[in-house]
């Protein structure tokens, strides 16, 4: 059994009278490819927002490698090694592809303001190595030729890929993918599955993804948690989930006896 990397301990998110997520408890193990699924409005993205510090949970705590993330700002959590993509793509639209990824690498920049002003060797060489590192990352998704194009000019599928590249540039321990296959066709989704598997082994990553595409989830996830109305109703391997009466009920409703 490998160690637990990310743990949500009884996290609850309450917006006024609405409990978007209710005492959610789950763990993601190191190196695992885990999935979080559930019908629309189940609270999946709210969970991501709590894991990354966009929301502070009303109750409960999140732990990364045993360290509590309570009270930390999103950028601090990013520095600790949690990164994410967004359901409704949040690229830096006015900037080019290269700049988008370079920004994510900012936390690893070695030079200070003085190096910048005096244009020291350290400034020049670390800018250069930063750029070549980013180009290598872009290469994984075949985006390197578009490095200087504005991010907003990319087709939808490539924008999603660019979000993943940008997230990787933070050098994360775990990457949270919010519906990476949304809007992709069959073959694109298939490609994406392969890439996710590839980056996981290449970067020694742990992956947690939200997805509606059941084929993708069942195809690559090792452990799946199912959320409905903010409550976890089932958790387990794909085969367990597929045969769970509760999950089928949540997605399709109860069969009418009459």
């Amino acid at each position: 059994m490998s160690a637990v990397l990310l743990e949500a301990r009884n996290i609850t998110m309450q917006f006024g009278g609405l409990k978007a997520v209710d005492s959610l408890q789950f763990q993601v193990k190191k190196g695992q490819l885990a999935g979080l699924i559930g019908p629309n409005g189940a609270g999946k993205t709210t969970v991501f927002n709590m894991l990354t510090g966009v929301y502070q949970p009303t109750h409960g705590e999140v732990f990364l490698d045993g360290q509590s993330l309570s009270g930390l700002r999103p950028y601090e959590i990013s520095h600790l090694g949690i990164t994410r993509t967004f359901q409704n793509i949040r690229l830096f639209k006015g900037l080019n592809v290269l700049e988008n990824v370079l920004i994510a690498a900012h936390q690893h920049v070695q030079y200070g303001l003085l190096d910048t002003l005096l244009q020291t060797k350290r400034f020049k060489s670390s800018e250069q190595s930063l750029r070549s590192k980013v180009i290598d990352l872009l290469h994984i998704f075949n985006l390197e030729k578009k490095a200087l194009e504005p991010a907003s000019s990319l087709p939808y599928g490539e924008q999603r890929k660019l979000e993943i590249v940008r997230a990787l540039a933070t050098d994360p321990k775990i990457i949270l993918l919010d519906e990476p296959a949304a809007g992709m066709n069959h073959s694109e989704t298939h490609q994406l599955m392969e890439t996710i598997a590839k980056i996981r082994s290449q970067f020694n990553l742990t992956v947690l993804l939200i997805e509606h595409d059941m084929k993708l989830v069942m195809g690559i996830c090792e452990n799946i948690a199912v959320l409905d109305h903010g409550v976890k109703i089932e958790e387990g391997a794909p085969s367990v989930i597929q045969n769970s009466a509760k999950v089928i009920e949540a997605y399709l409703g109860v069969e009418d006896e009459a």
Partner: protein
Amino acid sequence: MGFLKRPFLAFLALAALGLIVNFGFNAYIQLIVLFILVNCLLSMSLNLVNGYTGQFSLGHAGFMAIGAYFTAFTSSKIHFLPDSLQLLEFFVFIFGAGLAAALAGFIVGLPSLRLKGDYLAIVTLGFGEIIRVALLNMDFLGGPRGYSGIPSFGPFMVSFLFASVWILICFFTIWRIVHSSHGRGFLSVREDEIAAEAMGINTTEMKVKAFVLSSFFAGVAGGLFAHFTAFISPSSFTFLQSVNAVIMVVLGGMGSMTGAIVAAVLITALPELLRPLQDLTGIDLRMVIYSLALILMMILRPQGLFGGYELTDLWRKYVRRSA
């Protein structure tokens, strides 16, 4: 000293320009040229906040006033160097003026940069007005009578070169920062704060840094202004002056440094260039034409003259095409 090569070349170019103005034009034009330099500093510094970092500051006149009064007071009261080194002394005081404005920027920025958009505009607007009203009530700074007897740098050429040095410091500082990872941090705040935070950018820190640096150069601009006019009063730093700075940034194109400079030149020179028209027609059409030009600009080219591009981008495009 490789980092000084380009600034030095730029200094030579500016000096040549100064010589032309020195020998080719009268004192009236020369004073306008000096005001152009002050406005260049203002628009470049405001561009850092409004253009690159995507915040909206409307209080630049306040920082300028702090710098102006700081310089006025220190340079007329304190002498710590022999007379032959007076320019160096002025340089130190203007640096101090920048620091004083930067400190004010830090105090105002730290709490208010948590606000967004319109709210930040209101807070900074309020700050500018508070500074002005406070100055009106400070008797040791002259109150509403203003502060006079601020020493001059000397002949036009000395003033011009002195201001040019500050222009270049400002330009290359901002230019280099914007073209580094720190500057990309500023841009990410403008583009999408939530995504920037998720990618590990401390957005508050970025905003405060941009704001403080911007205030610094606004203070410097105020200091130069005080020396050029020899007299300042609270009415030199009204809300209109802040708006003027915003107009320059918007006209030049948000996030374009060369655009900010071109716009500062236009905005400062245009009302003066239109003055002969007044003598000709007998009616003051200057402000009518000036505002019409701005309205037309916003209709025909809302992204500003340069729209986020730099003069150097055009240059590169042209060279690449002809090569």
